[in-house]
């Protein structure tokens, strides 16, 4: 089996395995029902939500169009604020920079806030490999860390876990004697107690950034738990790990983003904490980090800026497309084999890594279009997935049989007369074959479809035949 075939089987197999887990499927169904409702409520209450979307889109477009100005401007202001600014071309380079800073300070313990960028670079594993103790302090991230898993969702990393599963993880990980831990409240209280120690002992804090403000060098951090703020405030060294495209021109632009992000992500009007950090503690401050670093990762984003997929850089990582995607709801985040799952991940993972590494993801889509409808940045995700499928075909990635089938279809589709004759013939054949049961148990070339269900035998003519019949009826 070729690497490509493994890739295709990887997603399909992982999705099938995910569907076999009844409890997890129920959990995903529940989330797929409730999370869109929460967003819709917040959007309806807001008022001019579409105008807000358009405004932020134009703003981000302007920022990306002028990134050559805004990025150095941010860097300049951040340095004036007392930060050390680093650029990393690759994920490995970001990890090496962070490790180097930890080593310079003889750090042993790291308290880490939620950051998809550090998931992308697998920073925690890189630091742990060098014997640093890294604790994920976001509750969801902490749960998946204890489980030895990757986040299943970019906003709710442990949403796939049940209370019972989390209870087992906590009982095994925390030596706190006998206790019940039957409710989320008890689990949250225990995490708070355990985590408090980590915050107080950590030598280095690592956080991500929801935005970087060019005019004043602040980085924006949006959380509900307050863990990111503790990471940014208690350890003596703070490292902000983020990416080069996360710029906004002004503080007031962060306000617009804040409005859009919270409502799109969790249906909240705003999160509990929206914080802006400029650098190390000031002369008269009694607390706060004494040294702060900002690491700006590129990892192919500047290439994306020059490509047809540039709009993908407008993604604000809210997870709305995940919450509204039927494929994500069915397969779950882990099936994607990438830290970025769902529609945005199906576009981003092949672009940040390669189509060869994720050949299956552009196909993980029913083209229903819900993702684009709810995307706060109005990113044309279904179009991009289609374009990636085209790229795949051009570069001959994917199984040969599949590509031949698509070529045959394309050949037929541009010959309407032949297409109609062929579909007419196949409908007659299928009708004849299924005349007794009204359905077919097996179909040639479609074993995957009929493997799970019967195919209803066509009862009438082709679409075009029926359409013409209706037209004739109307003319009479």
């Amino acid at each position: 089996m070729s690497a490509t075939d493994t890739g295709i089987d990887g997603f399909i197999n992982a999705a099938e395995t995910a569907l076999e887990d009844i409890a997890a499927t129920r959990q995903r169904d529940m989330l797929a029902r409730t999370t869109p409702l929460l967003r819709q409520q917040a959007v309806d209450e807001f008022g001019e939500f579409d105008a807000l979307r358009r405004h932020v889109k134009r703003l981000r477009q302007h920022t990306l169009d002028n990134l050559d100005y805004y990025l150095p401007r941010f860097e300049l202001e951040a340095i004036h604020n007392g930060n050390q600014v680093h650029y990393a071309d690759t994920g490995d380079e970001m990890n090496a920079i962070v490790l180097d800073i930890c080593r310079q300070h003889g750090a042993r313990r790291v308290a880490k806030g939620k950051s998809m960028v550090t998931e992308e670079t697998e920073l925690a594993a890189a630091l742990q490999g060098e014997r640093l103790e890294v604790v994920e302090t976001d509750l969801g991230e902490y749960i998946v860390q204890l489980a030895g898993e990757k986040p299943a969702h970019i906003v709710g990393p442990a949403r796939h876990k049940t209370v019972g599963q989390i209870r087992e993880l906590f009982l095994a990980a925390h030596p706190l004697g006998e206790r019940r831990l039957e409710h989320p409240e008890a689990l949250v209280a225990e995490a708070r107690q355990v985590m408090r120690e980590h915050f107080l002992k950590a030598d280095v804090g690592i956080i991500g950034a929801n935005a970087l403000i060019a005019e004043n060098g602040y980085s924006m951090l949006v959380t509900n738990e307050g863990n990111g703020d503790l990471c940014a405030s208690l350890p003596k060294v703070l490292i902000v790990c983020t990416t080069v495209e996360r710029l906004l021109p002004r503080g007031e632009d962060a306000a617009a983003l804040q409005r859009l992000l919270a409502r799109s992500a969790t249906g909240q009007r705003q999160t509990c904490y929206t914080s802006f950090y400029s650098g190390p503690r000031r002369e008269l401050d009694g607390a706060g980090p004494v040294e702060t670093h900002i690491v700006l990762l590129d990892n192919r984003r500047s290439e994306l800026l020059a490509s047809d997929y540039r709009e993908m850089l407008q993604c604000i990582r809210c997870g709305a497309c995940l919450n509204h995607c039927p494929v994500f709801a069915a397969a779950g985040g882990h099936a994607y084999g990438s830290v970025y799952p769902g529609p945005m991940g199906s576009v981003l993972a092949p672009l940040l890594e390669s189509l060869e590494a994720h050949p299956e993801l552009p196909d993980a889509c029913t083209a229903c279009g819900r993702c684009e409808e709810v995307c706060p940045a109005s990113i044309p995700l279904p179009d991009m997935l289609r374009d990636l499928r085209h790229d795949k075909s051009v570069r001959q990635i994917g199984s040969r049989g599949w590509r031949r089938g698509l070529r045959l279809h394309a050949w037929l589709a541009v010959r309407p007369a032949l297409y109609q004759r062929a579909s007419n013939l196949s409908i007659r054949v299928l009708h004849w074959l299924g005349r007794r049961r009204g359905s077919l148990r097996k179909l040639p070339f479609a074993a995957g479809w009929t493997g799970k269900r019967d195919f209803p035998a066509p009862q009438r003519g082709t679409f075009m035949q029926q359409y013409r019949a209706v037209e004739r009826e109307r003319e009479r």
Partner: protein
Amino acid sequence: MSADSRKRTLARIRGATRGQDAESIATELGKLGVAPIARAPHRNLLVSFMVNVLRNHGSLAIAADRLEAVKAVRQYLYDKFRSQRLVAGNEPHLAAMPWREGGVLPRFGELTPGEKAALSYADWGIAETGAITLATGKHNPPANHLLAEHHLVLLDVDRLLPDLESFWRQTILTRGKRPRGINFIAGPSSTSDIEARLVYGAHGPQALHIILLGKVSAEAMETARQLAQPPGESG
């Protein structure tokens, strides 16, 4: 390593952008206009702020003057802890409060392990979100608002802003005048990471209590309480 990456990254970005001068960029940005803000729950700024605080699961008290404010702090501490003790930042407004007359024993400084309640003096309240803003500094140790179980905040009703943009427009953040951190706090710390069920008191405070200092009518408070109730609930 980082310097080479910087050069390469910026070169790639220059190749993919328009290379406009700062003036043209500022003009273009100005033409983008302003973002729409959330529909206010009430035409009165103060009522809107109070509605949003309550919707964010914060609690409210009203104090007409500074002595009343201390009494409101005392009442809260008594209700929650049967205690008169709390920690307050070295903030001039807080230092000038009539603590002794009001019967509260504050300790000024940074919260230490075991202390459960801390009081901050908010720079601003944002009506649009119900958030209060704090700037870190000597007056405002981060442990006080991040590690206390109960976070009490004193907010002067004259310090209300309609929306988030107003905060940025009126806050001077030129070089050398930028606080290390600016925190917008809208409600107690929370998480819905377990089965998407909302739980308060994740890492930070389990409760956020805002004492409004100034003229607030009982009717305004009542209107806010009614508007803050989810649709379908009454009483």
